[in-house]
């Protein structure tokens, strides 16, 4: 049930009405209703995975309470429960997401040594959204152990946090300390929340349906047959694919945030104008923010403490491990690992050159120079576009094959299906860019939030019309559903 489908909206309407009617009954009843709706939603995607979600939720609920009981009296025992939680969380993730891949890799290795290993028949169905809800579960026990939150005694509330339907399939990965307190208060129907939520959903649909889904057929046609395309086509496809990735995932995040907002719940932001970043470090601070923050808080920071004796080299090593994990989180494929290594190395380069850069900027008075800023933005974008090809490639060999095509002449571009991009995606990209530019430079020009009601209504009506007229309306799946 994708958010941009009629089925979802029927489900959402059927959820929302009783949800607000339960306002007077109290937050507990609202949470229970939300939990039931969330399980229904998750079960609609794959009912066979409901027991996994329920059992892991119960285990982590119990672990949270056990940690809470021992935090002061027996911190070592509490730490052991925390470790158990992390092991279970990672174990579930490894079993469902990586075990098949690992078995295949070992089989290939053994075969290369001349051993007779039969073709792998190991096949595990990966639960949808597993990377997102296991990270929420682990984050919960880690936060309880750190003493940042109290263990949650209300199982309904905890279950609602884990299974919350707008975010369970593709994030954002909410932290318990921000999310759980919101479930303590009864959420009443609020015109501001409804209108802001709807505007956010509309913008998400625009990004997804008018840009990402319009670009996808062309980039698929290019990357799936890269050997037949020249350098010009590969370069344009790489740039467009990064835009497609962003609008697909940011579009979903906007819709999830909008749906939650309509229910009176604030979900963490996942993107903040990443294409305006002037270096890779800034890019990752604004791209898939909830994942980056999760890994930074629970992996990078402890690692830098562990490696502190190694000085700057310790930070570089922690950075590399951090990014390999971010890459591998996306899936069981060497391309994702290499994606992490690539971004990790770029970030190390940024860190290593930081002092020299600042000195250079000071000397030439470049800090406020727009040309300098845009040059850095474009460079960062292009470096990320290379990373996007790596991310998109089916294998490492495919990535190098695709890159090799860039050197294979720069003749005319492949134009099959490019018309849809020219007529619909390019104007939409322009609108999205202007919106981000206005926000980046804090301009007062507003459309959806204009103080003049006529401008507001007309701009919203035009956007709805544009989405229906130019968007891909067949409910394509989201790229991040595979994680």
């Amino acid at each position, binding site marked *: 049930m994708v958010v941009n489908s*009629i*089925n979802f909206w029927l489900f959402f309407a059927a959820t929302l009405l009783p949800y607000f009617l339960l306002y007077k009954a109290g937050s507990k009843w609202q949470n229970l209703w939300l939990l039931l709706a969330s399980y229904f939603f998750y079960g609609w995607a794959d009912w066979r995975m409901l027991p996994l979600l329920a059992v892991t939720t119960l285990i982590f609920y119990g672990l949270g309470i056990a940690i809470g009981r021992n935090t002061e009296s027996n911190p070592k025992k509490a730490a052991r429960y925390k470790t158990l939680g992390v092991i279970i969380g990672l174990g579930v993730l490894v079993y469902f997401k990586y075990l098949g891949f690992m078995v295949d890799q070992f089989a290939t290795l053994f075969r290369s040594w001349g051993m007779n290993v039969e073709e792998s028949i190991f096949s595990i169905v990966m639960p949808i959204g597993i990377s997102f809800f296991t990270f929420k579960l682990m984050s919960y026990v880690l936060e309880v152990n750190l003493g940042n939150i109290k263990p949650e005694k209300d199982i309904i509330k905890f279950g609602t946090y884990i299974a919350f339907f707008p975010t369970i399939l593709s994030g954002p990965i909410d932290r318990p300390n921000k999310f759980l307190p919101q479930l303590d208060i009864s959420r009443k129907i609020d015109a501001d929340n409804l209108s802001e939520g709807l505007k956010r959903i509309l913008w998400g649909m625009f990004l997804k349906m008018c840009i990402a889904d319009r670009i996808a057929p062309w980039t698929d046609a290019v990357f799936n047959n890269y050997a037949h395309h020249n350098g010009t086509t590969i370069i344009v496809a790489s740039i467009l694919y990064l835009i497609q990735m962003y609008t697909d995932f940011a579009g979903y995040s906007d819709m999830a945030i909008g749906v939650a907002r309509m229910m009176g719940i604030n979900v963490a932001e996942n993107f903040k104008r990443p294409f305006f970043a002037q270096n890779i470090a800034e890019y990752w601070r604004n791209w898939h923010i909830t994942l980056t923050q999760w890994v930074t808080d629970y992996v990078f920071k402890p690692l830098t403490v562990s490696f502190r004796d190694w000085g700057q080299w310790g930070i570089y090593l922690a950075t590399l491990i951090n990014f390999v994990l971010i890459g591998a989180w996306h899936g069981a494929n060497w391309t994702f690992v290499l994606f992490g290594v690539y971004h990790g190395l770029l970030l190390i380069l940024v860190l290593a050159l930081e002092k020299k850069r600042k000195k250079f900027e000071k000397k030439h008075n470049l800090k406020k120079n727009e040309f300098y800023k845009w040059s850095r933005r474009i460079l960062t974008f292009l470096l990320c576009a290379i990373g996007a090809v790596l991310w998109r490639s089916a294998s490492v060999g495919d990535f190098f094959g695709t890159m090799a095509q860039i050197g294979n002449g720069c003749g005319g571009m492949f134009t099959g299906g490019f*018309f*849809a991009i*020219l*007529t*619909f995606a390019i104007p939409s990209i322009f609108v999205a860019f202007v919106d981000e530019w206005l926000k980046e430079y804090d301009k007062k020009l507003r459309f959806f939030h204009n103080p003049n009601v006529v401008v507001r209504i007309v701009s919203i*009506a*035009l956007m709805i*019309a544009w989405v*229906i*007229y*130019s*968007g*891909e*309306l*067949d409910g394509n799946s989201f790229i991040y559903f595979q994680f």
Partner: protein
Amino acid sequence: MAIDLGVGFTHSRIFGNLPDKTSMVSTIYYSLFKKSADVLILGSSTANHHYNSKMMEDSLRMSVYNSGLDGRDMIYFDVVLQSTLERQIPKYVILDISSVHLDGSWISRISDTKLYYGQNVPVSNYYDKETDWQQRLKLCSALYRYNKTFSYLIRVKLDAPNVFNGYAPLVGNRENVDLTYYSNFSLDTKELAHLENIIKICKRNNSILILVQSPQASDNLEFDKWIEEYASEQDISLIKENKNSYYFDNPSLFYDGSHLNSQGADILTKRIIEVIKHKIDNNCNN
């Protein structure tokens, strides 16, 4: 609502007066609303590129229209035939057929006709009877019906005028064609129902239906067997040009693995003309 009405009004005017060009939307428009002929050619890209309508007209002294369009399936062929009947009953219907027209893989392409929902009876009937309530609900909106049609309009402006009554010759040739065989065919019941409807319409109107399998480098043996048995059961002529080694011995007749070039198309067309002439002779003798 006002935008929806405005878009509906302007677009219905524009898409109801398209020039006769080789673009997809023009072909759909002329097949559904304008063209009629004694010999109607139905099919996808193989039909579009393989049947020289001008050569057929000159030889048979009958009007010929090639409604072939890339990536279409049996549902589209049925809709086109029904639409043509409203103007003229064709004497001969040539249906260029292959497994992809019946296995459901191209079924979604019928959505390109949704802009004529409410204007063309067979199109409207298809959506009203064979699609779900969600689709019918969406069709209430003109913005939805004309979704992504703006790019079609640009194509209409850029594409060449249609001078061959639907036939689009391909120029270029192959040095070799590797024949590949496979056996994997699953019949889609919805597609089959539309094939049955085409047969029923032809029988009811005394139109002679001729099925043709065009020469293609990849040959689905399971489908070949199925269509042979089916044509025999239904007592329909089936011309198996996909088994004619002449084409494969002369790869220069191919544009690519799936399509003949204009020289290859002329040879295939002559073969069809012979079959039709033979049928005309038979009818005269009877």
